[in-house]
């Protein structure tokens, strides 16, 4: 298929996985703890986008029956949206805990460089 068609079909997946891989790359290579936490957050955002993109139906609308008599066929899938709601809250909880630990780590070590925070030896 042509390039435009390919982009049209897979744009959301490419975008979502692009964010996931950027987040993973930051997580694996950066030295500063706050950057690593930001990378974790970017990866989580990519995952949420991927989950929502799975539920899309062509020309679909939001699954809310605001007027009586709306057709249930033309609505997108509500289940991935529910999954993402739960996953966002879990992501926020992990982020809050990570930032708290970063605050305490800075108080103890005076630096946020992960290569220097290595007091536990082999």
């Amino acid at each position, binding site marked *: 298929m042509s390039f435009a068609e390919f982009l049209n079909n897979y744009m959301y997946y490419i975008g979502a996985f692009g964010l996931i891989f950027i987040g993973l*790359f930051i997580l694996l290579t950066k030295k500063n703890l706050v950057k690593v936490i930001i990378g974790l957050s970017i990866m989580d955002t990519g995952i949420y986008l991927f989950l929502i993109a799975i*539920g*899309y139906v062509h020309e679909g609308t939001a699954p809310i029956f605001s007027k009586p008599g709306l057709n249930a066929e033309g609505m997108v*899938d509500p*289940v991935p*949206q529910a999954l993402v709601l739960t996953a966002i809250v879990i992501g926020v909880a992990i982020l809050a805990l990570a930032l708290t630990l970063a*605050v305490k780590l800075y108080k103890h070590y005076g630096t946020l460089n992960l290569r220097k925070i290595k007091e536990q030896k082999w």
Partner: protein
Amino acid sequence: MRKLLGIILLAVIAAGIALSLEEIPFGISKTIIGDYFNKNGVEETGATNMVTSVVVSYRGFDTLGEITVLFTAAIGLGALLTGHKKREHSDKVEPSSLIVYTGCRFLFPVLMLVGTYIFIHGHLTPGGGFQGGAIVASGFLLMYLGCKGKRIKFKASTVIEVLGGLIFVGLGIAGLTMGEDFLFNFLPKGEAGELFSAGIIPIIYIGIGLKVGSELAGIIDNLIEEST
């Protein structure tokens, strides 16, 4: 060197995922349960917002787990940040100007109202307990940032938080004591589209909204206390 290894690892994972994504074409949803929920959701649960009926009624157990996760994070934060106040900092904070102070005090009840509206109408319009609770907490954040020196009362926020959680668990157990399953929708479903409809769903969402709002406000309180 590390970056090269990282890129190779990511390339391998990307190739694997691309292979697997061919089975999931974009725009055609292969869902079995989603279609069932869209078709029968309004009669079975009484809510017109399908996402709400999935979150609270069909997959309500996940929502119970989710508020537990948030509760765990809030308690964990409270356990780690013991709030040692450093005395020399308290005079370095400059008070905010009159416009900011008055503006924040004016916006605070507006934000409370918007947040409460969103979580009360969760079964009719997009939104719900978590979204409304987050807006309420952002109202508290505005007060912390704009008007220094005002703090939420610890006792009141703890009582509201515990009440919110107990509403959810209590409604679930009430379903059990009536001989049905846990989280059974036992209140009358009313007419779809009205405010007082959908059985226990708006009550659960009010509980969740109160819990999330006070919990996030507590987290903000802990973090700001740690830094001053």
